[in-house]
């Protein structure tokens, strides 16, 4: 089926936040000044009361549905029962975006509750493209694919991550979610230039940006080295803010979400992080106008 949709132009004006269940009552009560809300739908499938509150919020905020359990890269197929449950939730919320990860989480009937790395090969491209088509058919709207955070890659890869993303966009016409923090983290861990990665990212396909915190720890694979772990347990680090400004210059003022999943802070702190992203976007916009003038 043909998938056409205007992806959320209004959300580009103000940064949104990842809405987690511990914050939902406060958001319902206070209606904080954030541009939009992004949820993990898997947290609401077993929580009818939470979904009721979210449906109420959907009247006042654009909602984005960011899936974590579709496992689009699974060799043995995707869970169609789960997909149908997500479809019902998408129908109820009518979100501005539906997105997920370039990763896999399930094999042989086991769901690993993590986003695991894929080998970048023609076989994987075929699998991911087929699943992407199925997901978009079920949802009846574009499914936006996020670049992974990486600690290891697979030696069987015949393409780089960037080559794979370009091929996926070319083959499927999909849109991409560029997680800027993932680019910084993966560049550090896997030894590539994050700025160059942004420069070579399929810019025309970008529909959304993500920012999140990471945790440095000793790299047991490299004595004396440091590894950045994608914990979403801290504020966005300075290098990621710099890369975010670069991404805005390259991609334009894309809709942005700030994520925080673990060691969740007070809602006000998360809102401050979103305000920082607004400030960076405003600064980039003013610089652009100044140079244009």
């Amino acid at each position, binding site marked *: 089926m043909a998938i056409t949709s205007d992806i959320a132009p209004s959300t580009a004006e103000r940064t949104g936040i990842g809405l987690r269940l511990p914050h939902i009552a406060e958001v319902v009560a206070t209606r904080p000044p954030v541009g939009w809300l992004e949820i993990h739908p898997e947290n609401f499938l077993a929580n009818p009361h939470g979904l009721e509150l979210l449906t109420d919020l959907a009247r006042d905020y654009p909602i984005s549905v960011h899936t974590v*359990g*579709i496992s689009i890269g699974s060799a043995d197929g995707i869970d169609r029962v*789960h997909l149908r449950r997500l479809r019902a939730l998408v129908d109820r919320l009518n979100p501005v975006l539906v997105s997920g990860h370039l990763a896999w*989480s399930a*094999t042989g009937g086991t769901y690993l509750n993590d986003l695991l790395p894929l080998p970048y090969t023609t*076989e994987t491209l075929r699998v991911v493209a087929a699943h992407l088509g199925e997901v978009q058919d079920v949802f009846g709207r574009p499914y936006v694919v996020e670049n992974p955070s990486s600690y*290891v890659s*697979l*030696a069987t890869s015949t393409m780089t991550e960037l080559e794979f993303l370009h091929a996926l966009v070319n083959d499927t016409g999909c849109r991409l979610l560029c997680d800027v923090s993932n680019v910084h983290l993966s560049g550090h861990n896997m030894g590539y230039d994050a700025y160059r990665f942004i420069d070579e990212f399929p810019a025309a396909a970008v529909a959304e940006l993500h920012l999140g915190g990471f945790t440095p720890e000793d790299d047991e694979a490299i004595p004396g080295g440091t*590894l950045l772990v994608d914990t979403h347990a801290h504020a966005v680090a300075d290098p990621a803010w710099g890369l975010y400004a670069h991404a805005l210059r390259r991609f334009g003022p894309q809709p942005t979400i700030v994520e925080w999943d673990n060691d969740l802070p007070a809602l006000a702190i998360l809102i401050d992080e979103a305000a920082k992203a607004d400030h960076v976007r405003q600064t980039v916009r003013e610089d652009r106008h100044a140079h244009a003038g």
Partner: protein
Amino acid sequence: MLTLADIQAGLRDAVINDNGTAMASVLVGGRRPEHRLAIHSRHYTASLTRALIERFPATVWLVGSELVTHTAASFIREHPPTKPCIAEYGDGFPRYLGAHHAAAALPYLAQFAELEWHLGRLALATEESANMHYIHLGWSLDELIGFYLTDTAPDEYALRQEDVWLELRGLRGDLQINRLTGEEFARQLSAEPTGAHS
């Protein structure tokens, strides 16, 4: 050349068993990339342990976090999730916990945890979702769970072994536990769809 399915099966085993040695030759990332794979193993265990601990706070209150955490770690290895909705993971944990050798002196533990499982689920219910459950216990655990829910603790409490038939109701955080007679319980059971009782 390993297929995608081969790689995923190998990585699944490495993650669940926290041992990436067998996959080291296909991993890239530092001199010992299998050590980096341990980040995924750690996340697998930590996130699911946290999910179970948060799902059974009254059970932790009753027997302490050490026993529940220790048992959760082996449960997660032996019974990985099969579905992507982690909030639904753990329905088999009460029975597994009760069968653990450290719980041998706590014959009521499995039923207590099962009662908590259903109350936790019902606390999130609305009129449109399943908001009732019928459960038959061999111990008078409803009083004990009542102490937990009301944050009270008697100086002394003797657990009685007896048949207890309960109707559990939940709606947007409000919970009701109603005692039924055996006859009432049987009547309700015959009227309710499968899955609304245990």
